């Protein structure tokens, strides 16, 4: 983690404050709520065909093995079907709800409320990621909703856009590939771009289209833009790496691969490789391994009594922003390698669960 975000400098300060507060709140030990062997770890995510989700799963499994609970690790895939994600959670709770921990990558923010309500109702424990309905917070009476690990998509958008603008030398036209428009990250990341553009009048947004996170959809759109704007396109902004790579192939078809800066988000291996090759400029990683494991770690700590019950935690421990990493040519090589368990073991320790918190997300 060599390159921290400037934005988050200030946040780091608040982090220290938060940790101190947490330390204050931590008694030596609370009593265990479950037999350790009874604890069931559930990772609920969209699918495992995208590298990002593969790594989410790997992270969760890594933690389970580390905690000696690998046999109790359950993977739930909803195939992009929000209703199914809710149903899957509710059905598995037919047995042993009180000792079940959910680490949830919400398919869409609509699933949040039903899932946390289910947790409250059944006594299961849940940690959620990414986005949050307006007016919904763990510390507002949801005692079984341990925490929400938010990602500041706007900051992500800003960070990656800064990289793009820098690579373009602060002037020229860009095109933007948006994600699924009804998702919060898509909008926040784009908002981040807008913010950066406002600061750099030299850079103009020629066109924007949604490509639904999808590489295949991005390809023809990029082609059309190349036909329409030709060499007026000096940079390509994509709301995720998959679309960025689709655009990259379109550039390759036009013999422009590596000649026009391309940025994406997620930090999937392919993108990192492309950055290493110099065909992509930058991507931002929220570290899927960490996201896939931290919720399970928190739950385990609560259930084993190594951490106090969540309702005693401080607000900014219940809902905080996750530190993200900008990956560029400088650190691509480092991130290309698959991390080992010990890279995370320290961050799974029950007294160090907020090592990547950068301040409250409410």
């Amino acid at each position, binding site marked *: 983690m060599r390159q921290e975000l400037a934005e988050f400098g200030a946040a780091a300060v608040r982090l220290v404050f938060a940790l101190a507060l947490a330390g204050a709140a931590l008694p030596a030990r609370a009593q265990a709520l479950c037999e350790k062997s009874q604890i069931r770890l559930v990772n609920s995510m969209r*699918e*495992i065909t995208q590298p990002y989700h593969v790594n989410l799963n790997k992270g969760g499994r890594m933690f389970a093995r580390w905690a000696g609970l690998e046999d109790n690790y*359950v*993977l*739930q*895939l909803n*195939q*992009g*079907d*929000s*209703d*199914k994600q*809710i*149903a*899957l959670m*509710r*059905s*598995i*709770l*037919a*047995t042993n709800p009180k000792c079940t921990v959910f680490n949830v990558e919400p398919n*869409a*923010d*609509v*699933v949040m*409320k*039903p899932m946390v309500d289910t947790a409250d109702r059944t006594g299961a424990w849940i940690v959620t990621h990414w986005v949050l*309905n*307006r*007016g*919904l917070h763990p510390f507002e009476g949801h005692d079984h909703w341990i925490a929400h690990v938010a990602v500041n998509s706007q900051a992500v958008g800003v960070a990656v856009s800064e990289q793009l603008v820098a690579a373009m030398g602060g002037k020229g036209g860009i095109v933007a590939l948006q994600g*699924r*428009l*009804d*998702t*919060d990250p898509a*909008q926040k990341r784009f908002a981040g771009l807008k913010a950066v553009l406002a600061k750099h009048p030299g850079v103009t947004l020629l066109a924007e289209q949604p490509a639904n996170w999808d590489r295949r959809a991005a390809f023809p759109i990029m082609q059309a833009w190349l036909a329409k704007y030709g060499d007026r396109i000096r940079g390509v902004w994509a709301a995720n790496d998959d679309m960025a790579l689709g655009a990259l192939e379109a550039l390759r078809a036009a013999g422009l691969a590596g000649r026009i800066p391309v940025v994406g988000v997620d930090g999937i291996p392919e993108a990192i490789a492309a950055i290493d090759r110099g065909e992509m400029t930058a991507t931002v990683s929220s570290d899927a391994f960490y996201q896939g494991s931290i919720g399970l770690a928190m739950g385990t700590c609560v259930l084993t009594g190594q951490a106090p019950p969540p309702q005693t935690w401080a607000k900014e421990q219940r809902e905080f922003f996750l530190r993200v990493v900008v990956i560029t040519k400088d650190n691509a090589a480092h991130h290309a390698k698959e991390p080992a368990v010990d890279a995370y073991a320290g961050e799974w320790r029950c007294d160090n669960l907020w090592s990547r918190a950068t301040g409250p997300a409410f």
Partner: protein
Amino acid sequence: MGTVGPAKQPDGNDRFAIGGGRSGAGSGIATGLAPVAVLVALVLAISAFSPSFLSAYSLRVLAAESSVILLLAIGQTIVVILGGIDLSMAALASLTSVIVALLLPELGAGAVLGALCIAALIGALQGLVHARAKIPSFIVTLAGLGLWSGIALAIANTTVPVAGRYEVIGWLDAHAWGVPNAFVLGLAMLGLFQAALARLRFGRHVYAIGMAERVALLSGIRVWRVKTLAFAASGLCSGLAGVVMVARTSSGNPTIADSLLLPSIAAVLIGGTAITGGHGSLARTLIGVCIVAVMRVGVAVAGIAPAYEPIAYGALVVIAVAITVDRKSIGIVK
């Protein structure tokens, strides 16, 4: 679907097929019971994997889970019996969810009623275009699918949390005497439309059109009116599905129901309703819905490795239909 030339036999009533002794296996009773058998077998198989699957709790979850699919499948059944298909239902449900979530705080119950009316009107509109402009329902509703979800996105390009008056619909997410209210609502609609199909002129006309539209026309039935009504009904069902969605998630979302289109259609056909039209019933659809719901959730609960999940699902769909399809009423399998 499509046009039928004068030289062609009416669908599902093929004299060669019958005279040629190709009417297929299975008496009415057998094909009627087959879906039930499949359902039982499926449940037993899954509960063998995870015994808790038969617990009152799981069944209640299952019922709640299937209620949305049920509502969609009810509307779809009517349209399919008519000989058409409605691909726009899920998108329409999503649109309704957005409208309800947006208007609920100001209008309360009015928002729900209004949204339902809009959904029904949209459905009617599609039926009218299909019947009057003589465009296959497949195409009309395909276009509708794009239109309505596009409009939903335009109205609210992300999730809309219900900012107030949730109690107006909240009861749909609760359950009385262990039965989810949403499911009860579904059953109520089912009973309502089953009665309409079996006892009302509308129902008789729907079947007549599904079996032999040409004869219906030449008998002076105002086919376009019946079609418009039927699609209005499916629109209404989509609307209700949308409302239940809002109750379930206490928010509206322009794509929330989209993933339920194919499952709901599968439910109708697995129930044994013929896609060629004219044959089928809502009772069959109810079983079909249960089967689909069990497959959707059960396969996952049974703890099968993720990659094998879709394989199992696909195989089950084919097997289920192979057993339940009423070959007698489908002269020719297309």
